[in-house]
């Protein structure tokens, strides 16, 4: 399937928006405006954006701690994301969750997770609902290479497979779990081989190729609805440290630079221009839009009220 101009535009814009979101967020950190931590996905934008863009609202996703690209891919509102990042009442979690817990049930995001592999059982359950209720939608479950070593990975893929649940397990393999290279955390090169343990299909893709990811996700959705779960591994890289404080002694500058040359956004941009789908100017204009959108988001967030301690017991229990 060839992507339409509209679809390409969406991919490019969302990736750019995500990059801008995080670069701005990083500056807010440095400016001392944020308490807490954040995990940036700069360099990995193609994964969440490529997978989530072809989904419908009724398709669910579960996000990771490194999930801004996933949220933006699923059409979350950057104003509310930024407000949550700054801990404001208007944020997605009313300032109570922070960016490790952004969620937007209205667009189908069942939330980011602070626990590595914490989203896998949840996604399995969401897919169980979809199957049980006879919906023709799927759940996409994001997790990292490090998460693939947790027991929750094994149990969730196995359960989903036994029950043929419509869940697409997406492993964003950025080669590291915090500081630990996958060659120290698993004795295999290609994580997708693990699919065989569950008798399901596994594929590995270039995680910086947003177009292929988009196309393969569409196919995967059909596959998963018909046959049950599938494991899709997206091989990519994070450019920045694991979280705000990371001296990155565990990898070389060269390695990082090599991957920077494979920037998913630049790659897509080059493709759009090569194929004459967009002009440089059009893409620059899209970028400006994204920059403005994030500026507005910061303004929105900064002008939003702080949550009040008087509401602290709200939402501990539902009525």
């Amino acid at each position, binding site marked *: 399937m060839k992507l339409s101009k509209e679809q390409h535009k969406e991919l490019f814009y969302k990736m750019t928006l995500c990059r801008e979101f995080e670069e701005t967020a990083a500056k807010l950190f440095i400016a001392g405006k944020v308490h807490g931590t954040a995990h940036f996905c700069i360099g990995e934008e193609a994964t969440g954006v490529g997978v989530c863009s072809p989904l419908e609202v009724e398709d669910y996703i579960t996000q990771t701690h490194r999930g801004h690209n996933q949220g933006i891919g699923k059409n979350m509102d950057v104003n509310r994301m930024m407000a949550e990042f700054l801990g404001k009442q208007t944020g997605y979690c009313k300032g109570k969750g922070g960016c490790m817990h952004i*969620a937007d049930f209205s667009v189908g995001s069942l939330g980011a997770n602070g626990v590595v592999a914490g989203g896998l059982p949840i996604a399995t359950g969401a897919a169980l609902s979809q199957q049980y209720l006879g919906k023709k939608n799927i759940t996409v479950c994001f997790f990292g290479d490090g998460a693939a070593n947790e027991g929750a990975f094994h*149990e969730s893929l196995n359960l989903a497979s036994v029950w043929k649940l419509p869940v697409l397990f997406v492993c964003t393999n950025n080669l590291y779990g915090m500081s630990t290279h996958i060659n120290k955390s698993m004795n295999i090169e290609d994580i997708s081989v693990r699919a065989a343990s569950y008798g399901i299909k596994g594929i590995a893709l270039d995680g910086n190729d947003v177009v292929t990811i988009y196309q393969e996700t569409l196919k995967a959705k059909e596959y998963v609805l018909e046959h049950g779960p599938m494991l899709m591994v997206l091989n990519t890289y994070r450019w920045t440290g694991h979280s705000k404080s990371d001296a990155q002694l565990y990898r070389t500058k060269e390695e990082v630079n090599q991957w920077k040359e494979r920037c998913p956004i630049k790659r897509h941009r080059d493709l759009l221009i090569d194929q004459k789908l967009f002009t440089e100017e059009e893409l620059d204009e899209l970028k400006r839009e994204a920059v403005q959108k994030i500026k507005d988001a910061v303004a929105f967030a900064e002008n939003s009220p702080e949550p009040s301690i008087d509401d602290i017991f709200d939402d501990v229990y*539902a009525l």
Partner: protein
Amino acid sequence: MREITYAQAIQEAMSEEMRRDQNIMFMGEDIGVYGGAFGVSRGMFEEFGDKRVRDTPITELAITGCAAGAAMTGLRPIVEIMFSDFMTLAMEQLVNQAAKNRFQFGGQAAVPMVLRTPGGSGTGAAEQHSQSLEAWVCHVPGLKVVIPSTPYDAKGLLKAAIRDNNPVVFIEQKLLYRTKGEVPEPGDDYIIELGKADIKREGSDLTIITYGRMVPRALEVAEAFSQKGTSIEVIDIRTLVPLDTEALISSAKKTGRVLIVHEACQRGGYGGEIAGLIADSEAFFYLDAPIKRLGGLDVPIPYNPNLEAQVVPTVESITKAVNELL
């Protein structure tokens, strides 16, 4: 009224609720044809089929999280953990996800699920199959915790738990499964609101606060003391969270003497919470004696039946504790 067992009462509660609401489903290890390790769900697979009554692989973490995920997206799952000792494998999903998702997502999620699991010793199943771990889950905001002591309470409380929009940990008592008690006819729908203690026996000289399997023992002791002219009130808290603090405090004020009894190890048990609440309430000023706790010994549950019987409160040890307070 007809009499049925505690196990049947639980099965009836699940079945009646499942007939009422199609979105309630039930999953766990060997709960289908096998009927569950304690036979609680016998017949349910035959009635509801394999879509709604699901045998799972041995995978406690996944089924607990799966229930939470399903609960956030339209179902009302009941999950059975075969022995409460295996909650140890499910704590991450129960505590970090199910209990917190509503709060940490700013109210976007509701997680209406029930985790049913049998607790307690007495079956000769030893250290890893006999623990009473309710104190852990009571310490987790976002969870509710129920432990019934009679068939009547079990049925009414489980129905309330299933209708509740929060994750409820419903801890059953292995040694009560075969005990019988009066329960209204099947059609006769009743609910016992979570958060209400039940005075199982009124009294004026001393209050025993307890729950679960220790309730019948406390009643036996109270009955024996009444022969000797001592009037013991026995309060069954039934729901540990939310706790009916008011009921405990007024009883303590009335009798001035409090004994707290539970099977779980005394150190770090929920008895400490209860003692702490009373000691920091106006009841403090009415107390005629120290607040006494009698929990299980701080040892793992041993296999040998004589040892096993003696590491938890017995009629004898409860009697002794009452005497010390009088």
